[in-house]
């Protein structure tokens, strides 16, 4: 180491250390190329193809869930809930995420829902055809929220809790063809549910959740939650009590006459408000598995019939309105058989059901003589008869807020054949819907002014604001007041002396018209099948309700409208009129709701099942005394304002013997608790005094004795059990 060159770095200098090394250079170059490839690929993925991957990423990172709105409810005119929603909880699982907890989950579900563990295990281990685990299986559908919460509280892995709203029709079959139905997605598929779907359904909101790779979602702060807008409530002109009465009586009438079905429509002629619209046969919309095909149509406006004698009101109206025929004008009724010669040897035979020789025009109407009407039509002429029919709404849809309305057919005079004028005069060669017919009669009841029929009273926002309120719509005057009065007289004659004597009742003056016609099904006459009907209104002096009753193919006591549909009409009228409070005309369209305590509804003449449901709907309790099918008394009286949750006492018709007028029968309260006994006696306004406590042993006066209203009843009571008595 004599003269080491300066700055040599090692005493052990590698001969090659600092000179360029080809192989290291190759290695370095190899790495550099590799760097360039990686950088190039980075540019490709992160710059050129970034939008594509960003889309994919967004799709897998985010999930937007719809927040379903609450569908609006439907109420009757007094604020009784007809349709609302009930919440259900459905439980599903993601078997892949459940994994090891399947046993625990199955045990828990089995304990809560009572099904065997194996039922759940089988589902939790469900695989697809390919053998991989499924990602979604239902475990329980539509269970009560309470049960759902029990499971939710356990925070089990892989369990999905889904809230599902189900439409709840509070009165099952009641008004079902009117209210309609919704599908699984809560969209209306029939009736009012369809008609007002847009109003009822509201607007969906949405929430965007962040998802992780295991499919779990959590709220994302990046996206605002859009709250759903709940659907509007719809208040109908329907009166729940009338609807119930209509359906009950229609059902009874159908049973009695072994009819195929029937329709009842009630409306208020002064406003056109539909009060009831019943269709039989009906369905229970709460039943599961209903498909649109087996939902009965609302035939009151979707199906036409040949009105037959009901149409004579039009013939008569035109005769009076144009002052062409006096009520007293006498006609040769031809002994029931009238030949109308059509030219040549051809003639047409018009018959009446009874053989009359001479009838005045009004008598012709009352006994429903086709011959008198045919002869009158020759005087009236085609143009005037047609105009009268058109004015009264035939051949034109009424425009009611219900889906599927048809217009019927009223031929124009130039389309008429030689027979049309005569046929039309007694209701043939024309078709109309039951609704068109009842609307035509309501114009007469309303002193000649035709009102547009309507079923919608109000639309309310969930906030309580009224979005829309219906006002009665006048369409036109169809006859003068004078004519209307003449027609009313004739219609009363029908009930008093004519074909409608079955309708006569001591409770109220009724005017109306019977109708019997050959039945049309799907546009063709059905052999030996008839449509029997009665349309009328009451009270005659101040018409408040126009009602149509129609029975399809009655076949026990005959097929004439007067004897089949007539009694149904009468019972409906009697039951409605019996409750004078309800019938005073003082009703407001919608009863006060929520703010103050509930008002006791009028439950008299209703079936106990309906009455108690109405009470439940108003948030009231009830106690029912006696047995029977009609509520005869109630306490407190209708219209009384009471606290929410308070008791209403109902007394049914079959309790004891019927009292004679002006006195009361003392009910048997022995064996009842003091409280119950007092409740019962107070209904009848008895004055009650109590001795002792516990159970009523004796009562004075004794049960079944007749006493004056307000009499004093003394009760002797004993403690509840002999054992407890012995202890004293």
């Amino acid at each position, binding site marked *: 180491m004599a003269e080491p060159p300066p700055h040599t*770095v090692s005493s052990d200098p590698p001969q090659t250390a600092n000179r360029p090394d080809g192989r290291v250079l190759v290695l370095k170059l190899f790495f550099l190329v590799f760097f360039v*490839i990686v*950088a190039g690929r980075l540019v490709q993925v992160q710059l050129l193809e970034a939008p594509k991957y960003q889309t994919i990423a967004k799709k897998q990172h985010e999930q937007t869930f719809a927040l379903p709105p609450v569908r609006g409810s439907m109420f009757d005119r007094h604020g009784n809930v007809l349709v609302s929603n009930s919440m259900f909880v459905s439980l599903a699982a993601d078997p892949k995420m459940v994994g090891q907890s399947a046993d625990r989950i199955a045990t828990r579900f089995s304990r809560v829902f009572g099904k065997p563990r194996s039922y759940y295990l089988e589902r939790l281990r469900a695989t697809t055809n390919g053998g991989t685990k499924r990602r979604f299986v239902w475990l329980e559908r539509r269970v009560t929220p309470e049960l759902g919460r029990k499971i939710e509280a356990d925070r089990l892995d892989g369990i999905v809790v889904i809230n599902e709203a189900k439409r709840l029709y509070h009165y099952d079959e009641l008004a079902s063809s009117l209210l309609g139905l919704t599908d699984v997605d809560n969209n209306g598929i029939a009736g009012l549910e369809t008609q007002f779907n847009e109003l009822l359904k509201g607007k969906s909101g949405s929430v965007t959740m*962040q998802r992780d790779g295991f499919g779990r979602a959590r709220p994302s702060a990046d996206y605002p939650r859009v709250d759903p807008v709940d659907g509007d409530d719809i208040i109908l002109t329907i009166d729940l009590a009338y609807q119930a009465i209509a359906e009950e009586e229609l059902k009874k009438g159908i049973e009695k006459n072994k009819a195929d079905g029937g329709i009842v429509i009630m409306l208020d002629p002064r406003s056109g408000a539909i009060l009831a619209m019943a269709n039989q046969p009906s369905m229970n919309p709460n039943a599961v598995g209903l498909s649109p095909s087996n939902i009965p149509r609302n035939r009151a406006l979707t199906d036409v019939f040949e009105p037959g004698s009901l149409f004579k009101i039009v013939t008569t109206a035109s005769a009076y309105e144009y002052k062409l025929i006096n009520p007293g004008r006498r006609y040769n009724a031809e002994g029931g058989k009238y030949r109308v010669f059509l030219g040549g040897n051809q003639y047409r035979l018009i018959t009446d059901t009874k053989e009359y020789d001479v009838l005045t025009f009004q008598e012709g109407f009352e006994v429903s003589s086709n011959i008198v009407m045919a002869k009158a039509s020759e005087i009236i002429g085609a143009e005037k008869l047609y105009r009268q029919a058109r004015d009264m709404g035939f051949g034109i849809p009424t425009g009611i807020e219900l889906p599927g309305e048809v217009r019927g057919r009223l031929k124009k005079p130039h389309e008429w054949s030689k027979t049309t004028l005569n046929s039309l005069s007694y209701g043939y060669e024309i078709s109309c819907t039951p609704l068109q017919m009842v609307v035509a009669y309501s114009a007469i009841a309303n002193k000649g002014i035709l009102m547009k029929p309507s079923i919608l009273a109000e639309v309310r926002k969930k906030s309580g604001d009224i979005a829309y309120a219906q006002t009665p719509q006048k369409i036109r005057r169809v006859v003068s007041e004078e004519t209307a009065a003449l027609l009313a007289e004739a219609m009363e004659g029908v009930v008093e002396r004519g074909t409608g004597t079955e309708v006569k009742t001591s409770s109220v003056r009724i005017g109306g018209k019977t109708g019997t016609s050959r039945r049309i099904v799907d546009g063709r006459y059905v052999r030996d099948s008839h449509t029997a009907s009665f349309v009328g209104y009451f009270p005659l002096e101040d018409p408040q309700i126009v009602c149509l009753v129609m029975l399809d193919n009655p076949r026990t006591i005959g097929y004439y409208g007067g004897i089949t549909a007539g009694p149904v009409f009468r019972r409906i009228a009697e039951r409605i009129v019996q409750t004078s409070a309800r019938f005073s005309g003082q009703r407001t369209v919608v009863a006060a709701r929520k703010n103050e305590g509930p008002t006791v509804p009028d439950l008299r003449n209703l079936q106990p099942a309906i009455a108690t449901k109405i009470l439940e709907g108003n948030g009231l309790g009830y106690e029912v005394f006696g047995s029977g099918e009609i509520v005869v008394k109630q306490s407190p009286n209708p219209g009384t304002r009471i606290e929410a949750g308070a008791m209403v006492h109902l007394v049914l018709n079959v309790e004891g013997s019927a009292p004679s007028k002006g006195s009361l029968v003392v009910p048997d309260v022995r064996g009842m608790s003091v409280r119950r006994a007092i409740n019962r006696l107070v209904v009848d306004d008895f004055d009650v005094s109590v001795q002792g406590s516990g159970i009523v042993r004796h009562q004075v006066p004794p049960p079944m004795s007749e006493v004056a209203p307000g009499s004093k009843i003394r009760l002797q009571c004993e403690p509840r059990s002999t054992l407890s008595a012995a202890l004293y």
Partner: protein
Amino acid sequence: MNEPRTISSGVKRNHIDLPVLIAILTLMVLSLGVVYSASATWAMQRFGESSRMISLHALRVLLGIVALFVGMAIDYTKLKRITKLTLVVSVVLLFVTLIFGGEMKGASRWLRFGGFGFQPSELAKIALLFHLSTLIAAKGELIKDFKRGFIPMMIWIIGVTMLVLIQPNFSTGFMILSLGLIMLFVSRARMLHLVGVSLVSLPLLVGYLVSAEYRLERVRSFLEGGLSGGGMSYQLYQGIIGFGNGGLIGVGPGESRQRDLFLPESYGDFVFSIVGEEYGLIGTLFFMSLFLVIMLRGFKIAKHAPDRFSQLIAIAITSMVTLYALVNAGVTLGVLPTTGLPMPFVSYGGSSLLFTSFAVGVLLNISARTDLHPRASVLPEGTMPLEPLEKKVRIT
């Protein structure tokens, strides 16, 4: 003139190479943020605590820095004497691992002492590279001799590789073989021998590759799907989505969504995808440039290494870090078949970080023994500084 910078004794040193040190420390510090973000959801899922994995990782990074300084402080030249022993020990450990090792995902790769586990293959890799450097430096031109030079070294390389492959750990085995061959290549072994060995080992490697269903599947999906995404494995596809979602500037630190259980191993072998997602192309290119710095400086250090042994070790370490980084990036980007390799200094994982840190410490140690960064104070008065020094060195 007695040269004060004659450092055969290992006492006198120059400055270490700052760019390498800064690059390493930057990677380590950034890895704390990236691994935390990438592991939080998985840690929550597995341990119910989002910070469980990052705290362990932070501890390992600290240990890594300690190992780095150990590597920098020791007189690595003395390692020459123990490389053979270390290699033998690690081979024994590999055997032990095969018999007693903890199973993980179907492979015996781990040895556990108390609470700590480590992968003997990582030790064996470093030991082999150091021992090969010792051998090559000792044999000199003898390396060109097939029997006395080439074969003994191939025996070590093939032996260690085989032991790792049968764990089975294809990726590490393949890397060990590659690095071993790189060592032979730069030590100027005859190309004939290298090509010969390659031709013999290639069919064996392919045979090994197809011997396991999952490996075959990976290769198949790589060949079929290529870069289109069609046949990509779920993990790779999710990795690519991560890169793509980041775009140019990324979604921001801690904002990765792919880590939310979409991307398996998002904190480990696929952590680079999370870098791409959170920091975008800018971030990924920055990370790659740090590795580029390490490679360029590493080769420079090697070039200026004081002796043949130091030079070989510098090349080995540089190649190891660079190759791991490139292969890892290549795998996560789908330009190479999927295989489980960590990204040096960034991925979650203990053994690799510890040994790599130590190795890079040695590289820095070597850099201090070059004249790349002379200590100003040790220059005698009046001596010219840096510039002329370098020129003079070049002349030699």
